[in-house]
């Protein structure tokens, strides 16, 4: 039986583009998708680029995307903060603070950790530690061990989250992909359930497996970070494996049912 779909979540980097290069056919495929009644959101893990910066790049390379259609791990953090009325102490990059500019920062009752080398020092870590000791929740944008930057490898937020967890005895909540809450939160304002949605991405574990564990369908594309055989390393297996985004869209349009 054909799958019934109402919403499509699309990863950005590696699925629609790599840096400033469009993955061939993606702009046209997105246009085709927009002609249907499917609701679309662009979902990505980011710790320092705000929606505005991501949107500027996509527009520059030719995608017609609305800023409100972008849902990032920072947006997910923001949702969680609003939902629980948290006033977080933020160890996040200055560029990312745009998304949190109107948050009350008095009497902090949570700690939010992103990628913020400029704040991962004794003074800021100790401040975060003392807030957590009072029982405040620790929210991690994600838990990467390290990342690559122009001058070599650098410690990622996961290391500092692990440090705070050790000293306070608390457990952090991650908000980015592949957390189920991330996908559910992205679907929330589309008003559709997980089973009526599909996620398209190049990361077998974080995009596809994460989405499927959250109840969505998952399509893996063989672009970006994809390496041959990735689909067989994960469980559950992708609902479909496509050559690229354009072929994924064709597959959905020709074999699945898109409903209002």
């Amino acid at each position: 039986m054909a799958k019934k779909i109402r919403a499509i979540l699309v990863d950005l980097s590696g699925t629609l583009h790599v840096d400033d290069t469009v993955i061939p056919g993606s702009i046209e495929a997105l246009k085709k998708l927009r002609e249907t009644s499917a609701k679309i959101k662009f979902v990505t893990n980011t710790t320092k680029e705000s929606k505005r910066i991501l949107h500027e790049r996509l527009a520059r390379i030719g995608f017609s995307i609305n800023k409100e259609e972008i849902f990032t791990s920072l947006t997910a953090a923001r949702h969680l903060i609003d939902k629980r009325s948290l006033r977080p102490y933020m160890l996040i990059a200055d560029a990312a603070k745009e998304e949190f500019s109107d948050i009350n920062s008095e009497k902090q009752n949570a700690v939010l950790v992103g990628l913020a080398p400029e704040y991962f020092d004794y003074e800021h870590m100790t401040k975060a530690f003392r807030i957590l000791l009072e029982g405040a929740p620790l929210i991690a944008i994600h838990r990467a061990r390290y990342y690559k930057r122009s001058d070599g490898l650098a410690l990622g937020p996961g290391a500092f989250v692990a440090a705070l967890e050790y000293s306070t005895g608390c457990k952090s909540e991650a908000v980015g992909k592949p957390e189920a809450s991330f996908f559910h939160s992205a679907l929330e304002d589309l008003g559709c359930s997980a089973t009526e949605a599909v996620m398209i991405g190049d990361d077998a574990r974080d995009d596809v497996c994460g989405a499927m564990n959250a109840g969505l369908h998952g399509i893996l594309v063989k672009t970006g970070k994809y390496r041959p055989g990735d689909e067989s390393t994960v469980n559950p297996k992708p609902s479909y494996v496509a050559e690229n985004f354009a072929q994924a869209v064709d597959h959905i349009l020709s074999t699945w049912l898109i409903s209002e």
Partner: protein
Amino acid sequence: MAVNSWLAEPIKGLLLDITGVLYESGEGFGTAIPGSVEAVKRLRETGIPVRFVTNETCATRAELIKKLHHHSFSVSEGDVFSPVPAVISLLKERGLVPHLLVHPAIECEFSGLVAGNPTCVVMGDADEAFSFANMNVAFRALKAMEDPKLFALGFGKYYKHKGQLQLDVGAFATALEFACDIKSEIVGKPSPLFFDAALSDIGITAKEAVMIGDDIVSDVGGAQKCGIRGVLVRTGKYTRSCENHPTVTPHFIANNLSEAVDLIIEAQSKNIHQV
């Protein structure tokens, strides 16, 4: 009395933590904890052997002794077991070249050992030297090693300084462990080797000793894992949550060192009379 059953077996030696048990750290020399100077004196008078086991790595051993003497504690350098001399002999033994992420005040202790490409990272409580830049240099040093080795001088979660709780070396060592997917080797409490060194210096077994400290995990839990009785004091970094700790139950919780020492001395004198 069941509460004091920990006193039933003879006590032939005491291991004492320093910071938070003898004095509270703070500006300058900090402040002696009321009754502690006299408690050490009483122990000396009764002849119960005492060794001081500390994870202090923000000062050289000589400076630490100076601080203790300033408060009139009767302590000599040979009685103090601290991680720096222990790790230095370990590095020499194994022919390792350390990359240091330690407090600037103790870097001098490692002079002569830091020549050449590092083959391990030695991490102590570096305090404000725990900057992102310094952490990253240590991280890259580990990533560059064929067989990355991380020595942590203690593995405390936090300690109390100037009346406030501060992150200790364990947090930052955990960060590097997580990033490099390795386990550190602990030199200091709660490493059994560290307790053993102090016990064999006295010449007693674990069962004959009592450890008194303010760190529920490192002092009390660490000692108990070696078979040493562990007593917690309600001074230093002690907080109420230690009273029902999920994994460690102290043999006894004393208000301070003085109370614990009084009970020990009293029990010893009874034991002697009974014999």
